[in-house]
């Protein structure tokens, strides 16, 4: 049995290239629109989670934005370090829930190392709603231990019990495979790279964290005093090459350097806002003029504002592409009308009514739109996965855009509606096709 869809299918097949190209244009527009919408939502989620329950960040960065980007999103190394001892005591006088020192600057195979104290896992949270949780192993308890973020563990293949050497700065040099004891003179290309490795002592992996959906997933968390020890040891060996060991007891105020302090003010249970936050913020700015006090929530909001502005432009572009997709359907059908008049006349002769011919053309346009929209949704899912990988690799942002069902439905319906609208002019032409003139000359 033949149906109207058999006629439409045949018509699409007869103009396969044109049908595929127009559907592809619609697919691109739909994919672009949906990807932008999912990315916007995912970015919002990622940014919202980003600072966890940290309310203030004290750092030596040039601006609050740089401070948040470096400390929360690991986009670069903090500019300068400062002495923890100069601030630890005075911070205790403020109404704080915690003030956790962190040190950044080292890395392992490109994964940033955040050196901190065990309190980090107890008091701070990766997400306001959730505590740090372990996938395997345990949090670090003593010196020269390291805990891995879920993505860092997966990408590096490390597991509890493995040992790693940290690298100074952000380098993707593989310090695990490089033997620090290798004869450097025989490997001139290795020499420079090996010189960047903190060879004093390896760190033992004690645990792997559960995914948090934040930038912390690609970080590794080392015990802070060990970090101080390896840096202090290397500094002292420059003066005394014969030095063989440095311990925590040898550390001085000069060695205990940090790059930031994560702060949370006293907050009533069940509340996300602290009444003392503005006062503490002012106090910190007044007391430490040399440092930058960043308000992560505010900076994240600003950052998201910038992203939103940019993606609004992309959204407008995507809508323009969708409209041009519909126009291309109109042009393709319009151009095909000359070839189809005979076919239409034949259908009329065998009993097909004018309204049905009209409906067939509009439906054909809508079908192109629908196929395009479906392909667009599939393309969007693929683009989302690619975006997640690229954002993570390039920016270290854990952004996991997922296809949003309601927008996907709305965009698909909009694509179908616009396409059907584009089919109206060709449909009117088809409706008005003269049967007699298109069958053969009247004689």
């Amino acid at each position: 049995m033949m149906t109207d869809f058999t006629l439409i299918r045949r018509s699409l097949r007869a103009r396969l290239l044109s049908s595929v190209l127009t559907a592809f244009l619609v697919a691109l527009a739909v994919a672009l629109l949906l990807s932008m919408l999912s990315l916007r939502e995912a970015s919002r989620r990622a940014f919202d989670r980003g600072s966890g329950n940290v309310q203030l960040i004290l750092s030596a960065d040039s601006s609050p934005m740089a401070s948040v980007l470096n400390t929360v999103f690991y986009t670069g190394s903090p500019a300068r370090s400062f002495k923890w001892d100069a601030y630890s005591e005075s911070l205790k006088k403020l109404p704080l829930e915690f003030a956790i020192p962190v040190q950044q600057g080292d890395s392992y195979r490109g994964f940033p190392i955040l050196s901190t104290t065990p309190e980090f896992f107890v008091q701070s949270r990766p997400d306001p709603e959730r505590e740090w949780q372990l996938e395997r192993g345990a949090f670090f308890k003593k010196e020269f231990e390291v805990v891995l973020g879920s993505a860092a563990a997966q990408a590096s293949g490390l597991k509890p019990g493995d040992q790693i050497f940290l690298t100074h700065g952000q380098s993707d040099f593989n310090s695990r495979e490089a033997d620090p004891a290798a004869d450097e003179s025989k490997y001139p290309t290795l020499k420079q790279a090996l010189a960047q490795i903190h060879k004093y002592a390896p760190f033992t992996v004690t645990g792997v964290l559960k995914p948090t959906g934040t930038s912390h997933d690609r970080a590794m968390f080392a015990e802070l005093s060990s970090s101080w020890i390896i840096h202090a040891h290397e500094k002292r060996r420059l003066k005394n090459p014969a030095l063989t060991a440095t311990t925590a007891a040898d550390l001085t105020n000069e060695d205990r350097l940090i790059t930031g302090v994560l702060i949370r003010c006293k907050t009533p249970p069940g509340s996300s806002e602290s009444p003392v936050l503005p006062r503490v913020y002012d106090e910190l700015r007044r007391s430490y003029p040399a440092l930058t006090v960043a308000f992560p929530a505010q900076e994240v909001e600003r950052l998201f504002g910038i992203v939103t502005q940019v993606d609004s432009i992309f959204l407008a572009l995507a809508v323009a592409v969708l409209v041009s997709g519909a126009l291309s359907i109109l042009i393709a059908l319009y151009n095909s009308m000359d070839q189809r008049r005979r076919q239409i006349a034949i259908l009329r002769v065998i009993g097909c009514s004018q309204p049905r011919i009209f409906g067939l053309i509009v439906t054909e346009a809508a079908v192109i739109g629908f196929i395009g929209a479906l392909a667009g949704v599939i393309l969007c899912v693929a683009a989302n996965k690619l975006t997640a990988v690229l954002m993570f690799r390039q920016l270290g942002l854990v952004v996991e855009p997922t296809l949003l069902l309601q927008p996907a439905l709305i965009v698909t319906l909009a694509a179908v509606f616009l396409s059907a609208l584009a089919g109206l002019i060709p449909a009117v032409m088809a409706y008005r096709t003269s049967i007699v003139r298109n069958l053969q000359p009247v004689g």
Partner: protein
Amino acid sequence: MGTTLYLQQARCVPEGESVDRTVPLQVRDLAFRYVDKARASNWGVNVATLQLAQGEQVLLTGRSGSGKSTLLYLIAGLLDPTRGSIIVGGTDIHSLHGRARDAYRGRGIGMIFQTFNLLSGFTALENVLAALMFSSIPGSEHDTRARSLLEQLGIKRFDDDVSELSVGQQQRVAVARAVVCDPVLVLADEPTASLDPENASAAMKLIQDLCEKKGAALLCASHDHSMAQRFDRKIDLEDLAGQPSSTEPLRA
């Protein structure tokens, strides 16, 4: 008086009502005038009366350009007459409008063309199914009906695109499409003009046999007078104007 009588007999049937097979065609006092502004010419078709009995096969002749095809299109309801009535299967086809007329044509009239006018890009089977698609025949019967008819006509490659079939096979598919809905009247417009004499004769026999089998009346426009002996009657279009239809019996 006669015209009034014919109009009273004609019923404006709603879509789906059966066709009266005892009255395949009655044309009365028909005039069609066409003004071709581009060529500054003015011509037309005039038929005083023309009637076909159930199952009757009539050859319509006339010089080239005399309006044979136009008369067929008028009977099929594809053109509107300036005056007069055309009753097909008991219904004045021009009293029906739009969708109702299209549906009635699909159900009651089969058309065969010189150039076959098959749906290109469709298979032989689909070309026949297309005609059933717009009929009131239940969908469950479509496939069986189309296949059995094509088999009767010796078409085995149902699923081949019609463009891949020979000219003779295409002609048979066109005939199958015209009769598959059991029409009361088959209109053939120079159906054999594009065939050589041998194939033309075979094709005409096929059309006539099939119409006879289906009980459909046949009005075949052709300028080929050699076909005349095959038909019940031969009518010259020019003789139809302003005078009763000439009824020259040709075969026993």
